[in-house]
């Protein structure tokens, strides 16, 4: 049986929403600890979109973003990706390093800061997923690309493309004081793992 996002029933979608909620919640808590600041989060939005709709949601395919990509292995395998718009990335780096620089470009230090932020977010996301679904899951070291969102997203979208014609995107907005930071999260189970994940979550 081929499982893809178009065929999910409403209960399965709810479970993924809840997963998004808990995962993002944990990720934001971890971020808040790292920054040593209170970070608030809006309830994440879970969207299932056709490929061509995705860049539009992110303000057009040419918008510059940072994409932090991880390989996931263990009881299920797949990939996860965080997409952080360029301006939000700069805000996060400033928060992390206690600077208030307006960066024209990202230097080596900025890039490792972003990888570290990705690490924290992905690590806490995956640990909540593995607790929830009672699975052993580990993540790889991060890979970072800063480029047009369409190009960055082409990698996970191609992975989704092997299963169907749509992607699941979890949109998270969080705030530190008046500063808004926006982030998007994609979970891309490998083909065999999708069914397994639904089984483990009790909604197969």
């Amino acid at each position: 049986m081929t499982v893809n996002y178009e065929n999910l029933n409403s209960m399965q979608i709810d479970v993924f929403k809840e997963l998004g909620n808990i995962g993002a919640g944990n990720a934001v808590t971890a971020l808040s600890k790292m920054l040593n600041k209170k970070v608030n989060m809006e309830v994440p939005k879970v969207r299932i979109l056709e490929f061509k709709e995705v860049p539009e949601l992110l303000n057009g395919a040419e918008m510059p973003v940072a994409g932090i990509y991880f390989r996931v292995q263990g009881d299920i395998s797949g990939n996860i990706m965080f997409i952080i718009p360029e301006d939000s990335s700069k805000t996060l780096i400033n928060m992390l390093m206690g600077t208030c620089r307006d960066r024209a470009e990202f230097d080596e230090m900025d890039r490792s800061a972003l990888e570290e932020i990705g690490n924290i977010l992905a690590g806490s996301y995956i640990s909540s997923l593995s607790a929830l679904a009672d699975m052993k899951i580990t993540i790889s070291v991060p890979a970072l690309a800063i480029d047009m969102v369409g190009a960055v997203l082409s990698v996970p979208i191609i992975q989704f493309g092997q299963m169907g014609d749509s992607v699941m995107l979890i949109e998270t907005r969080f705030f530190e004081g008046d500063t808004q930071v926006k982030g998007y999260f994609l979970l891309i189970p490998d083909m065999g793992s999708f069914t397994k994940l639904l089984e483990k979550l009790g909604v197969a």
Partner: protein
Amino acid sequence: MKEKITKIGMAEVSAAKHPAVLITLGLGSCVGICLYDKAKKVVGMAHIMLPSSREIKNNNNKAKFADTAVELLLEDMLGLGAQRHRITAKIAGGAQMFSFSSANELMKIGERNVQAVKSELVRLSIPVIAEDVGGNYGRTIEFYSENGDLGIKTIGHGIHVI
């Protein structure tokens, strides 16, 4: 005469008569295949995501795969009066956006897409007259019916025309 601008999204193909500009924004590991009949000024663009429809079960969308999209696009162009023997191709994209240390087949998808596109064009006897492929960066491409120029824009890797 004002040219008609058409955006081609992932897993889409589109053909147009002069005056037209076909655009794909933020091409990454996918490949943009740009076909042109110079005499008739008919242009066509395909934005493929995966090399082979035979490796995938869910393969109804012909525009998604290198081995099925080109023929689909050709049909559209012939319908607009293009002559098959005059058609030439320019291709762009197929970047490797992320570098993982571990060998992961999927990370090389850009390269595999480019190879699949090239062999499909060979199979259909369509010559590739210019290409801008590979690298680790995204591209926005603009294809003009006026002269078959393909404009390429990047972030940090310049702008040029092939």
